[in-house]
């Protein structure tokens, strides 16, 4: 017989896995993180005030992934997605990697996965999970204004990285009015 916890939280396993998979970029890590997150959710469940159980769960998944990545980084002594390290490379000041010259199945996803964690999570929560700025702010625990600015900067980076591939399609869009 499913418990109240299972009834409320288990239906969101796909969403939890999706977020963890894109945040951690490794399937096995994502599975472990999701299971870890569910155990944590079980402990926090008495404090769940009702409302959006999916958002509540994703908050825990996101925090679990952060903890794992931080631990990983300390262990590996590397910081592969450090904001400062990557921004000069991905900005328009540097030549774009050839992989971004076409819309392949990997390039946009690669670009998303290369975003610093703080940017990647807001992009995922917005585009993949469809949350509003306010909801993202609750999940990520930052004010709405910060969500907006992170999304904006993340998308600017993606546009810069994908410029050769995305722009031509877009400017030929009849709705684009750029005739």
């Amino acid at each position, binding site marked *: 017989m499913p*418990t109240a*916890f*299972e009834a409320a939280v*288990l239906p969101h*396993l*796909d*969403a*939890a*896995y*999706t977020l963890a*998979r894109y945040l951690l970029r490794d399937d*096995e890590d994502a599975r472990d993180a*999701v*299971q*870890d997150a*569910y*155990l*944590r959710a*079980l*402990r*926090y*469940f*008495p*404090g*769940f*005030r*009702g409302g959006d159980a999916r958002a509540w769960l994703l908050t825990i998944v996101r925090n679990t992934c952060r903890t794992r990545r931080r631990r990983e980084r300390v262990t590996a002594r590397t910081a592969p997605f450090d904001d400062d390290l990557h921004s000069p490379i991905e900005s328009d000041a540097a030549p774009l990697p050839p992989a971004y010259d076409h819309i392949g*199945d990997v*390039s*946009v*996803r690669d670009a*998303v996965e290369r975003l610093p964690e703080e940017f990647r999570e807001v*992009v*995922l929560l917005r*585009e*993949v999970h469809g949350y*509003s*700025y306010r909801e993202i702010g*609750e999940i990520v*625990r*930052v*004010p709405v204004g910060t969500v*907006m600015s992170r*999304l*904006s900067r993340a*998308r600017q980076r*993606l*546009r810069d990285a*994908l410029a050769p591939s*995305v*722009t031509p*399609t*877009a*400017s030929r*869009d009849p*709705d*684009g*009015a*750029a*005739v």
Partner: protein
Amino acid sequence: MTSDAIAAMTCDQLAPMLDPFLDGELDAATRRQLAEHLERCPRCADRLARSRALGVAIREQCPALSAPDDLRRRVQAAIRQDPSTAPSLSPSVALPAAPSSTPRAALDDPPTLPHPRSRQRSASTPWARRAVPWLAAATVLLAVGGGGWTLGTAHERALASGAARGIGADAVRDAVVASHLRSLEATNHLVDVVSSDRHTVKPWFDGKLDFSPTVVDLAGDGFRLIGGRLDYLAGRPVAALVYGRGRHVINLFVWPIDPGSADGGAHAAVTGTAMRGYNVRQWDAGGMTHWAVSDVAAPDLDAFVRLVRQPPVSPATSAPEPR
């Protein structure tokens, strides 16, 4: 934002509004004005098209995924075997060294478990042995989270009372600390009613709770009342009384002892733990369960608890109200 404001803005100034426009995050008036601008400004329309194309590309290439079947089974198994939901499961059986001693009850959960297909690691490992380390991890979590001198007691109580309440004391403590943390975050509210006057705070809870918490004034002892908040813990609405000491905040959670609980009223003595850098004190008195959480030093929190349990006889609490 007024139409004038939009009309007066340059394209570069409007650019940051394009994403919120697409995200449906602009108010109706601003949205309308921006749409008008977009109709007659090819440059902004082109930017908008680029943004839209990016969104489409992200959604196409980062689609929502389905959790693998074996993950679903792992999660279900882990939940059902968690000590807080399976009180009969002693923590010692969760040690990976003794998988053979794991009770049948803990292992017979998914009887129809097929062999995992896609993952080599899964396929080569019997699921029960995979689940056991998770139990160990859960136990370690408890141990690390407890970290205090009453851990054994708290854990026993969790196991003992879990059956009656469905919620272990550890889970409640976790929830209490989590609630304390939430209340301190800028995006959340610390108090629903802001007042240093206990005669304002106490009546505020009337009609919101099925009990009336005792609110004491401890300002004379260095614990000022900040206010009160309605919170939700252990499956019920509770009173959160918020006190301040210097720049530190103390959350005092109060709710009636569950008469159905196995240990109702049995914990008049104060138990204390530290968790994630926060000190936690719990005691029962007057039919109420009390949890105090704070980052103040342990002796300060102990002093606070003593004062709450035996409020000082002072003009603040004994004299007729001046107003």
